[in-house]
């Protein structure tokens, strides 16, 4: 507690008074409950003689919040720093720049497993098969809306995709987009361009 107060810049001579007040609140609190304490550094300037009322010149110059968790006889404190009541600025250039360059590294499928895919024309598939797999989950286009000559393939897990779409994906990652069924990957030992 005392270290929290010192980090907040509370003068040494003020600390016993604040701690005493805090313990007073803690003793009166329901065990297991939470107390939020606002400690404000307020500059007070006296106007006129000592008999006049004090006047707050700089309200809340600096403030911090200490949260006290009462749990039987022991308690924890958490200090909340840099409270930002507003949303993060969308023009936060540092954050957006670092995001722009970020790329996820996947493990591609082997060249042979990509080349070994069966390729069939849409019109050679049976009607129920097309109905079962309405659209390609990579481009989101319905198979039925494309030309009859579009090439379709299926992975060993039987999920169907456009040949062009799934090749682009398998050259990126070796797992089925829908069920994560893994094809042989370049990390399994076979080089990608053999």
């Amino acid at each position, binding site marked *: 507690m005392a270290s929290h107060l010192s980090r907040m810049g509370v003068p040494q001579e003020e600390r016993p008074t604040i701690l005493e007040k805090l313990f007073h609140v803690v003793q009166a609190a329901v065990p297991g409950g939470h107390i*939020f304490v606002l400690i404000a550094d307020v500059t007070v300037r006296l106007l006129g003689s000592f008999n006049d009322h004090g006047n707050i010149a700089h309200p809340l110059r600096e403030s911090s919040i200490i949260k006290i*968790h009462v749990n039987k006889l022991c308690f924890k404190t*958490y200090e909340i720093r840099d409270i*930002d009541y507003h949303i993060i600025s*969308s023009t936060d250039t540092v954050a957006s720049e670092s995001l722009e360059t970020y790329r996820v590294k996947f493990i591609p499928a082997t060249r042979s497993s990509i080349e070994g895919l069966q390729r069939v024309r849409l019109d050679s598939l049976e009607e129920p098969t097309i109905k079962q797999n309405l659209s390609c989950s*990579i481009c989101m286009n319905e198979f039925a809306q494309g030309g009859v000559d579009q090439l379709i393939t299926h992975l060993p897990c039987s999920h169907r995709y456009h040949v062009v779409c799934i090749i682009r994906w398998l050259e990126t990652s070796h797992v089925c987009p829908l069920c994560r069924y893994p094809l042989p990957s370049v990390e399994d030992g076979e080089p990608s361009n053999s």
Partner: protein
Amino acid sequence: MQASRARLFKEYKEVQREKVADPDIQLVCDDSNIFKWTALIKGPSETPFEGGIFQLAFAVPEQYPLQPPQVRFLTKIFHPNVHFKTGEICLDILKNAWSPAWTLQSVCRAIIALMAHPEPDSPLNCDSGNLLRAGDIKGYHSMARMYTRLAAMPKKG
């Protein structure tokens, strides 16, 4: 580039059609740039985020959907898997577990699920993660609730 544009346009049309279907998600494409989207999601019920509206920013890469969109919270949130300052989200499907079968809409649903089920063992916000790992559910709940009130709820009066 062309493939990503076509795919995003497809999603755009889907969002227009599904708007009423999912009242918890409001996904909007930037007027002039189809690679920039924002979403408003409702904090899931029975969580400290209930009643809050959280804004997400999407930056879609040119390689989309082969690469995941980059998503972050614009609204301040106290959650183990969201960076307190930048709003960055630690979620497997936005990293190595990404698949092109995910859409911007389903990513929003995954983020709502993450809000309800935090993963304190891979924290971006250590303070939040430590509260949960120490078993201080009440402490986590009250902190998260306070920030929901401060940042994600309309100001009263």
